[in-house]
């Protein structure tokens, strides 16, 4: 069991900055994120895009913002559970919460701060009858174990880098690889497109374009897919696996089932005070929350994180008084023993 003072769900900019504000109050943090690396959208979707509305940064790349935030919180030694999605939450008799991830990792904390942004990034699923029924029975959205496809017939759908890369990779593993794309053009790395062309010419990839998968066959497991080419009759491709690779889409995910008050796909909070949800001890900050006048901006997330930490302190230490201090006055003392402060004036007598 991982224990901490504030359990932060979401390692985007707001979640990361929460570690800093909590650290100033001597509160320890642990972050959970479904993505493999911290930074949320900034590092996953647009690391090379410039952001222009971060105070004191006329322009900063989203990836650099993440790097700076990680540097800023380093001395507060946050813990990370990356690549796992917060799945369930249970309130304990002592008022704390236990949050368990989809991989079974358990975390306990008196305060939970949901900084989930737009939600967890889930595979974009085509609208096909039987799709969900056959998930993990031949329908997979992420290739975790390539050996699963050894000597099997595989159909991949999609036209981006993932579809191209996995089609290439699986030609050495699977019995057959069929790649289906709605267009004749592929928008992936040039090398990958050329490699697929080469493998198609060698007969190692069965390329079907422009076409779409319009149906899946099979009861207990996938046995085939129905393919529709524009202006032609639909036909069946026998297969053991159907792997739709259409990128990721943000969804609120399991958090939506935690008993929190949800409005317009976001978590309602008390913005007059501290961004607490309808469940005491659970806060929601950043893009994941909603309240009258809400703006989904990184700088608003930073503000919300700061106020939230003050309330978290009072909940964790109900009998202690705390006076907010400026870092210019008190400096920053890290949990790693480091101390940052303004240099002291030199006092020296003049003869």
């Amino acid at each position, binding site marked *: 069991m991982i224990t901490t003072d504030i359990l932060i769900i979401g390692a985007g900019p707001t979640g990361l900055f929460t570690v800093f504000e909590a650290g100033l109050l001597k509160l320890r943090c642990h972050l959970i994120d479904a993505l493999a690396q911290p930074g949320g959208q900034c590092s996953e979707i647009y690391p090379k*895009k410039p952001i222009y509305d971060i105070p004191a940064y006329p322009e900063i790349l989203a990836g650099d913002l993440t790097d700076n935030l990680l540097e800023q919180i380093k001395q507060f030694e946050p813990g990370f559970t990356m690549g796992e999605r917060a799945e369930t939450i249970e309130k304990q008799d002592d008022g704390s919460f236990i949050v368990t991830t989809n991989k079974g990792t358990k975390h306990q904390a008196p305060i939970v701060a949901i900084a989930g942004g*737009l939600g967890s990034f889930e595979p974009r699923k085509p609208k096909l009858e039987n799709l969900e029924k056959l998930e993990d029975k031949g329908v997979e959205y992420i290739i975790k174990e390539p050996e699963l496809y050894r000597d099997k017939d595989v159909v991949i759908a999609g036209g981006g880098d993932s579809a191209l890369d996995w089609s290439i990779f699986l030609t050495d593993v699977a019995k057959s690889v069929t790649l289906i794309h709605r*267009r004749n053009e592929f*928008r992936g790395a040039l090398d990958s497109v050329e490699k697929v062309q080469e493998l198609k010419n060698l007969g190692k990839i069965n390329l079907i374009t422009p076409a779409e998968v319009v149906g899946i066959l099979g009861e207990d497991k996938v046995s085939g897919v129905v393919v529709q080419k524009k202006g032609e009759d639909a036909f069946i491709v026998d297969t053991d696996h159907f792997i739709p690779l259409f990128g990721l889409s943000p969804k609120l995910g399991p958090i939506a089932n935690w008993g929190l008050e949800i409005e317009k796909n976001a978590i309602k909070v008390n913005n007059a005070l501290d961004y607490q949800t309808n469940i005491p001890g659970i806060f929601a900050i950043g893009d994941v929350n909603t309240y009258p006048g809400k703006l989904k901006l990184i700088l608003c997330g930073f503000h919300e994180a700061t106020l939230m930490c003050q309330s978290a302190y009072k909940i964790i230490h109900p009998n202690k008084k705390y006076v907010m201090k400026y870092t210019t006055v008190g400096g920053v003392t890290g949990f790693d023993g480091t101390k940052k402060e303004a240099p002291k004036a030199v006092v020296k007598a003049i003869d």
Partner: protein
Amino acid sequence: MSDINIKITDREGVVHEVVAPTDMAMNLMEVVRSYELAPEGTIGVCGGMAMCASCQCYVNSDHELNEVTDDEDAMLAEAFDVEDNSRLGCQIQMTPNLEGLEVTLAPES
């Protein structure tokens, strides 16, 4: 002239005739959001960066639109319910030459 009249058919099939300003740097997705023609959280999810396709629409009139950028093309290549006249609303800036534009919002994806 800083306003244009456009017709937007929502996901329920209801046609809305709306007035869109051309002097506020708005795009079609933002117009749809400002008139609340689709529920919050179902349109413009990525904020207008051509990264989610939640604002996909079908352009029904023959207006000359700005060219499809690489980012938009890449997104449309992976989106669902894409037709030949599909565009991302976030990539269509409101300009005076779009007076009379007619679009239909694509199904939620």
